[in-house]
């Protein structure tokens, strides 16, 4: 056996858990593209200096938030406008914990408690909805209202009575959270600030991406997709679809919580505008444009749109993003990713038809 083929076998073995019928992008070409993209993000701060990594870090944080939506919407059919609720709750919780315990212990506890609170919150909301028979568009509306309740509530917490321990909630002025992202105990630990924070975000996003690909291609993922396609029939086959929806929604809440912690440690600040209607809709926009059944499409769309907004500096940004959104919903209901994949497949087919005489290259697909 040659060295080359044994590398091929190893690569196939590595890829196996992350591939399946529920993800598009299961070819060599796709995985090479994936590795190149990750590499590009990894060397970005080295190429352009540590300050250049500040904006991309934020892009990736919101990409992670959008991924939490793609997971539940694209694969379980639950369109939630409330991902920002879990995001913001985690951010505020991290702030409250670390302001009260300003040590490495506090930072570690902050991460754990913040994500736990966001997860528990998602579980409670999910239980309340799915076990109460709320479905389809009413889930969407209810989650939106939850975010708006938090917005209305946090806006009026400016007074000094809204203090938890040492932490002032701060109303519409927001809350300053000086603690860096860090793990450790007492006075010893590691803090991730600046470029290190960027790498933590990138690492978290890549790991989440791979894990979620594995989940949606697992037995549980099949059940999720079946629930999305036809809930009554899936129920008839003996699956507890209510529990499947609750579990998926809770996982989505946990991921949104993680992105909330990464956000508040990025800007050292959080305010109620994170719960606003516009903020609540941004993950939906990223997923719609990128492709709600494609994690990679969502991530790339999130990064591209935020980059575009930054470049357009204000005035025309929302006009362009809004028009883009309408245009894409009208012309490509499933987002860009499936189109890219079909295009690449078509090109591959055309090429293999052209040089049928020689060794025909395998059809490639680069999307998802």
């Amino acid at each position, binding site marked *: 056996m040659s060295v080359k083929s044994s590398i091929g076998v190893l690569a196939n073995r590595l890829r196996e858990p992350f591939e399946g019928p529920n993800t598009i992008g299961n070819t060599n070409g796709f995985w090479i593209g994936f590795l190149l993209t990750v590499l590009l993000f990894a060397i970005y701060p080295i190429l352009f200096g540590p300050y250049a990594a500040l904006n991309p870090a934020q892009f990736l944080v919101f990409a992670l938030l959008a991924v939490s939506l793609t997971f539940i919407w694209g694969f379980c059919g639950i*369109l939630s406008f409330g991902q920002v609720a879990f995001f913001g709750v985690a951010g505020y919780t991290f702030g409250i914990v670390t302001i009260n315990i300003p040590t490495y212990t506090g930072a570690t506890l902050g991460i754990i408690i913040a994500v736990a609170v966001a997860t528990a919150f998602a579980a409670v909301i999910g239980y309340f909805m799915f076990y109460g028979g709320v479905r*389809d*568009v009413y889930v969407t509306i209810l989650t939106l*209202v939850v975010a*708006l309740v938090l917005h209305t509530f946090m806006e009026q917490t400016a007074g000094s009575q809204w203090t938890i321990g040492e932490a002032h909630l701060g109303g519409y002025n927001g809350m300053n959270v000086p603690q860096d992202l860090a793990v450790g105990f007492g006075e010893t630990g590691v803090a991730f600030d600046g470029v290190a924070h960027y790498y933590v975000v990138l690492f978290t996003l890549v790991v989440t991406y791979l894990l979620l690909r594995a989940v949606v291609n697992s037995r549980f993922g099949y059940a999720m997709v079946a629930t999305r396609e036809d809930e009554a029939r899936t129920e008839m086959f003996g699956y507890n679809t209510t529990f499947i929806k609750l579990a998926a929604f809770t996982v989505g809440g946990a991921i949104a919580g993680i992105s909330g912690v990464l956000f508040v440690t990025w800007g050292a600040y959080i305010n109620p505008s994170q719960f606003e209607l516009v903020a609540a*809709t941004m993950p939906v926009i990223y997923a719609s444009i990128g492709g709600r059944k494609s994690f990679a499409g969502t991530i790339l769309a999130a990064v591209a749109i935020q980059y575009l907004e930054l470049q357009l500096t204000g005035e025309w940004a929302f006009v362009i993003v*809004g028009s883009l959104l309408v245009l894409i919903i009208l012309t490509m209901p499933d987002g860009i990713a499936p189109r890219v994949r079909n295009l690449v497949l078509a090109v591959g087919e055309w090429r293999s038809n052209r040089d049928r005489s020689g060794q025909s290259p395998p059809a490639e697909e680069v999307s998802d």
Partner: protein
Amino acid sequence: MSTDTIPDAVYVVLRIFFEFTHSFGLLVLATVGLAVIFGMMGIINLAHGEFILIGAYGTTLSFHAGLPLPLAMVTGVAVTTVVGLILERTVIRHLYDRLLDSMVATFGLSLVIIQLTRILFGNTTNNVSLSMGSISYGPYSSGTYRILLAVIALVVLAVLYWVFTRTKFGLRARATMQDAETARAMGVNTDRMYMLTFGLGAALAGLTGALFTPAFTVDPEIGSEFLVESFVTVVVGGPSVLIGTSLGGALLGTIDAMFTWIGGSFLGEIMILIAAIIAIRIMPEGITGLLEDWRQKRREDE
């Protein structure tokens, strides 16, 4: 004791009653355009607030261009209707039967409209002033115009009832929404019915914007202030346009008035939202869905 406290209690009741009429008028007017589009067509129009915005801007700008206020309001409604019809032809008609997509696309439209308004007309407008005085009772007073708005809300509901039950348009529109295929077989131009119904919804939103121009500060964000209230009222009311809107408005108006009285407007606002969450949980099809179930059950019992 008795001579003083009895009038006081009356004043408090009056106060809460006027608070209720105010809230009811606002909720019904804010909702009715959204309710027509959602109840009749199954489209959740997240650009509803921006139709209100267009109505308000049309009124404000034509008022400051020299038109008398009632004519300025008519202009506002007309502009909104035209914009609504154009959007229906270009965007919305591709989204029938795609509920979630329609939400996302209309949100895109709302972003565009808000931002275009900001670019074209700036962040502030000159106020449209209208002094109709106020009604005083004991230690309290309520603005006459706000009470007038509640009356107008009732008139709008009555007119809509007439349109949908007594006119040919209403009959055809309802037939289209209930069973488009049969309606088409009976010679109804369903495509036109969709267009006109959406136009009616837009016109109602424009009317709301026009009516609230003297009562609110008109800025590019005015739509989002209405959207939440209207959204919640539609959800609580359910898909039946008239009964849903009036009952939803009445229920939430009562809650708003009571909690505003107890703990200020913040508490009223947040209790409306919490009431909506509870309402979706216990009656996912809204009040009218609940009534429908109840009526069905009674029919079966007979």
